[in-house]
């Protein structure tokens, strides 16, 4: 029986409810923790590339070892992946080979220096030949567009993800051209809150590797530019068993950038049996079981707008659905932060070398819905 239970599920069950059962405790803590478990396990150059069931089954020992370090008696012990990586070294092919030859182990025998220092997120003695710091400003638009195309609610949620590979103990400052855009922010613990309060500058000693420096929110009060529009004509007729379906996607307020990676998904009403559609570009699928229509559009060419037209066959005799389906949209715009946020400069103190710096902007659709 235990074989059928997949391990990830058991981890989740164990961690979410075990402390809760023992006594009353803060619920958010459990959920937050259970969500933080996979984080060190699957994020890129941490333990495993992806956190899937077979991977966990293969590495069950490592998972055990890591969990052992993360939790003691139901209370989180160390969740910082930098520290965990020093305690339990991630399995790599090279290390496995070395270990079998030399007999050394994956388990560190010294307490990570970071654990005790005032910068627990960074380990000491980091060395790189190429010193580089990359920052990705990624913004997501959450929006609800109503039938007529007007915006009901729209807000921008942004994050700055960093990949910092710098030698030693660098102290970075990052400043924005227009920090006042940021309505609400939450920081990685490394960011000095006081500097931000007084000068609106992000000052921090970065963790080593990938981390999320900042997530922010641009308030709904500011007008959010909506970069795409969807023209739709979806109609069910009461009498006939055929419905018309037609959608066109077009660019709007894109600041001269192209919109890529457009995908349209829609949950069709139960009454729809099948769809007979022709896209002007891209590919589409309709799953008659889940009633999920998805259309992989790709790039939008403003000269020739992509469209998807055709008919729906409806269950004979059934009355027409009350509501037209909601259209969910995914897209990406490179080189653009839709809120207009711009990084002014990045400076490094505390180390002598010249790092290579790079900043990338991207806008994505978050929860972008069009009601029809």
């Amino acid at each position, binding site marked *: 029986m235990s074989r059928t239970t997949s391990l990830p599920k058991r981890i989740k069950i164990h961690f979410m409810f075990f402390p809760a059962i023992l006594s009353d405790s803060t619920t958010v803590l459990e959920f937050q923790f259970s969500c933080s478990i996979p984080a060190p396990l699957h994020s890129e150059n941490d333990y495993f590339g992806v956190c899937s069931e077979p991977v966990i089954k293969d590495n069950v020992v490592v998972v055990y070892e890591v969990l052992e370090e993360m939790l003691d008696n139901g209370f989180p012990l160390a969740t910082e992946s930098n520290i965990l990586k020093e305690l339990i070294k991630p399995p790599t092919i090279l290390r496995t080979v070395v270990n079998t030859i030399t007999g050394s182990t994956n388990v*560190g025998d010294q307490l990570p220096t970071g654990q005790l220092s005032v910068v627990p997120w960074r380990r000491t003695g980091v060395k790189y030949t190429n010193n580089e710091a990359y920052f990705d400003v990624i913004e997501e638009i959450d929006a609800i567009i109503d039938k007529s195309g007007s915006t009901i609610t729209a807000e921008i949620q942004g994050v700055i993800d960093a990949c910092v590979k710098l030698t030693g103990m660098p102290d970075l400052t990052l400043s924005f051209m227009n920090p006042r855009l940021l309505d609400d922010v939450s920081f990685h613990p490394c960011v000095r*809150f006081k500097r931000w309060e007084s000068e609106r500058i992000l000052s921090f000693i970065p963790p080593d590797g990938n981390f999320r420096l900042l997530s922010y929110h641009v308030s709904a009060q500011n007008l959010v530019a909506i970069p795409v529009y969807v023209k739709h004509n979806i109609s069910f007729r009461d009498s006939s068993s055929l419905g018309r379906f037609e959608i066109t996607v077009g660019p709007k307020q894109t600041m001269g950038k192209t919109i890529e990676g457009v995908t349209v998904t829609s949950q069709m009403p139960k009454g729809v049996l099948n769809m007979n559609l022709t896209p002007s570009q891209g590919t589409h699928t309709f799953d008659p079981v889940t009633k999920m229509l998805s259309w992989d559009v790709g790039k939008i060419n403003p000269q020739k707008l992509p469209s998807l037209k055709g008919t729906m066959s409806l269950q004979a005799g059934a009355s027409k659905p009350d509501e037209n389906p909601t259209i969910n949209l995914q897209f990406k715009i490179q080189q653009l932060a839709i809120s207009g946020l711009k990084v002014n400069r990045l400076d490094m103190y505390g180390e002598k070398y010249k790092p290579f710096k790079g900043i990338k902007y991207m806008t994505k659709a978050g929860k972008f819905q069009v009601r029809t």
Partner: protein
Amino acid sequence: MSSNSFSYNEQSGGGEATELGQEATSTISPSGAFGLFSSDLKKNEDLKQMLESNKDSAKLDAMKRIVGMIAKGKNASELFPAVVKNVASKNIEIKKLVYVYLVRYAEEQQDLALLSISTFQRALKDPNQLIRASALRVLSSIRVPIIVPIMMLAIKEASADLSPYVRKNAAHAIQKLYSLDPEQKEMLIEVIEKLLKDKSTLVAGSVVMAFEEVCPDRIDLIHKNYRKLCNLLVDVEEWGQVVIIHMLTRYARTQFVSPWKEGDELEDNEKNFYESDDDQKEKTDKRKKLYTMDPDHRLLIRNTKPLLQSRNAAVVMAVAQLYWHISPKSEAGIISKSLVRLLRSNREVQYIVLQNIATMSIQRKGIFEPYLKSFYVRSTDPTMIKTLKLEILTNLANEANISTLLREFQTYVKSQDKQFAAATIQTIGRCATNILEVTDTCLNGLVCLLSNRDEIVVAESVVVIKKLLQMQPAQHGEIIKHMAKLLDSITVPVARASILWLIGENCERVPKIAPDVLRKMAKSFTSEDDLVKLQILNLGAKLYLTNSKQTKLLTQYILNLGKYDQNYDIRDRTRFIRQLIVPNEKSGALSKYAKKIFLAQKPAPLLESPFKDRDHFQLGTLSHTLNIKATGYLELSNWPEVAPDPSVRNVEVMELAKEWTPAGKAKQENSAKKFYSESEEEEDSSDSSSDSESESGSESGEQGESGEEGDSNEDSSEDSSSEQDSESGRESGLENKRTAKRNSKAKGKSDSEDGEKENEKSKTSDSSNAESSSIEDSSSDSESESESESESESRRVTKEKEKKTKQDRTPLTKDVSLLDLDDFNPVSTPVALPTPALSPSLMADLEGLNLSTSSSVISVSTPAFVPTKTHVLLHRMSGKGLAAHYFFPRQPCIFGDKMVSIQITLNNTTDRKIENIHIGEKKLPIGMKMHVFNPIDSLEPEGSITVSMGIDFCDSTQTASFQLCTKDDCFSVNIQPPVGELLLPVAMSEKDFKKEQGMLTGMNETSAVIIAAPQNFTPSVIFQKVVNVANVGAVPSGQDNIHRYEE
């Protein structure tokens, strides 16, 4: 191809089957689950051999396989003896895996587990802290009652370990031992008490966790550590923060008085009782001022504020509940933004956060109103989230936003998720009852929904309409008729029952339809649901009473049917109704009143939020989520009527005195005193000082304070302004006389001190005048004299001292700035002198230990009192609609240590935007500096914004003139500081104060006599008066009648 295989099948069906069987076994055997029993045994045998081999790699391999077996849920307990032998392995990975195994199986094999104990005892003495820590961790996880004494000993030793990491593990072990053997409670509390004193951020979270588990009622253990915990909080790791914040919330609720009943009601009451006489008014003001927030209470609120920006949802939620439960109502608003941010995280967290918001939004809809649209439902949300969002939208609905909301609800009603659509209809019903303006609109909308195709929607609408109609019984005949028609089509029992009830209730309004309905129902009675049957009986009874001519036979028929129903409820009801309405010889007096009984006015049902009764649980707890008291839930007590003695939290001041002795001596003293002899660590922490505390406090404090300020402004401004005038007049007079003197000194303070004393005097005499008492008590004379004297001196003393220390510090800071990454003590200088005796690992231990407890040389203390009066910077008439007020928040200025921080509140009283507000030309006297605020892009009509700026007044009361400019206009304004605002309070002991006082007699000394009315002559009144005009702090004094103040 297919035909081929078919033929093959036909030829040798049996062969195929065996092949399949083989395949099945071969796929399964690697994982070993369905392998033969014997092979399993054999496998364990070879595991045993591997464990007994000499090669580490073989052992490791075996251990990995064993752990793999445990993970798959297989019993590996028979390997226990073989595994336990390896507990002493040198290889750390083997050791770790053995630990994993031991924790899993030790409880089952207690005797064998004892074999490993001596290894742990040895490991507890290992020089490597990681090994010590993990040995303790495993030892305490082994649930074998015999070893309780050993565990106790180990915990005691570990709690005094040099490594904070080991001490952290000791704190964890406390909880485990307690759950194994609650008898040990007293001893464990001792350890907790010791660990609570620990200054490491690493330990703090874990020990508070242990405290919460073992002895949450021993709140007295927290007193001495309260301030330390508040100050450490930002540096503690995230999980620890959550626990500490929850504990401190409980603590605050027992130790401080409620900040909630502010001003308004109190004042109203007073005014009702007395005429608003001047004297009375003064009294009222005094009463109001009586509630000043305990500085410790403020400290907690202030220090938790930055944590709202945490990336960890649990921390944000913890701070939010802290603000909700203990901060003044006016300040709780800041949590909404952060909570709304959490809605972006995964749906489990979203669910909890939405639940908490739902509870909050019932009580205080205001704070979430700006975020209304964040709660709009998306079609992709799971149903649990959708219903919670609906709940919140309902709570937030008011006259202003209801029309937008109803439009939004219209979309929801059409949702494919029918459960959600039904919930929306209920929501509409609730909005209709709560907001009278839209009741009719909602009713009409709901009636339209009655023709909806979906039955669930119609049924829900019927139920809601029934409730609405019950509230407004008048003229809804049409709707009732419409609903009566629905009876033919609708099948959902609740809806049918609702319609029947409605018709019965209004049977006199629809006299033609009601009997007909009854007729139809009589026909279908037997096939109806029980719920409907009961309502048919009710309808029959009501009609019998009002219209017996038409319905007598029908009702009797129904009653007969009911008499033989299968359900006893219905039989009972039938019997009851029959006795009541059908007159016979046995029926008593009651039947006379049957009509009154059946057709009485029924009170309308209250449509209430399901979250209404949750507010008695602490937010963010499991109990709140489940709405059931969970085991281990710690009740949040009500505010005490009278605050318990706040001095129990005083620890700093006494320690401070010790730290002020020369360094060498202090070190000796410390190391002798502490129970663990980490003199270096002590040094570190002693230097990182309490000025870091107050600094970290000040940044967040400003805004918090200003909120409080705003509340009481209006009330106190009247009398304070007059006072202000007289003061400033006098001061300027003095100013002129002393200009020469001042110029000769670089940083002379005497003038301000004189002024200060002058203030003191004038105010005391003012008040005595006001009370119209002309008695000049000789004793009061002398008292007030001494008071003002000592005060002025102390200020001088500390100022000089401060200067000295500042000079000392500045060069040092540079050296360590690269290492000292702690945000919150930028000026602290950990002068850890590496002693040769220290091992490198110990040094590493010490790195993290510079904690901000209180031990600096001069610590700027938090202001004892923040005056509530604001000064007009720019009147709205002269500023063309732009009004500006300023006040002194009495916080150390963030822009420079010589600057006085000033908060300016800008109000836009016009009906259009004011754009680009900034500081224009500055006309400052020589030497004066000013840090301006960032230009404000635009200020909305009726909007106000608070900015802070810093001005270095050069310790004089000269006026700073500058221009406040908008896009179109420039207005000249000026700020002249009252002398008291140029001072900075510091904390020092009485002894130090006297010493410094002795050093500074002579040139700067001034003394004067203050005549005070006897009624003003109580310590608290004097204290209040002094702190009102000057930013000073009180020195704890042994003698009652001498007041000393520090600047």
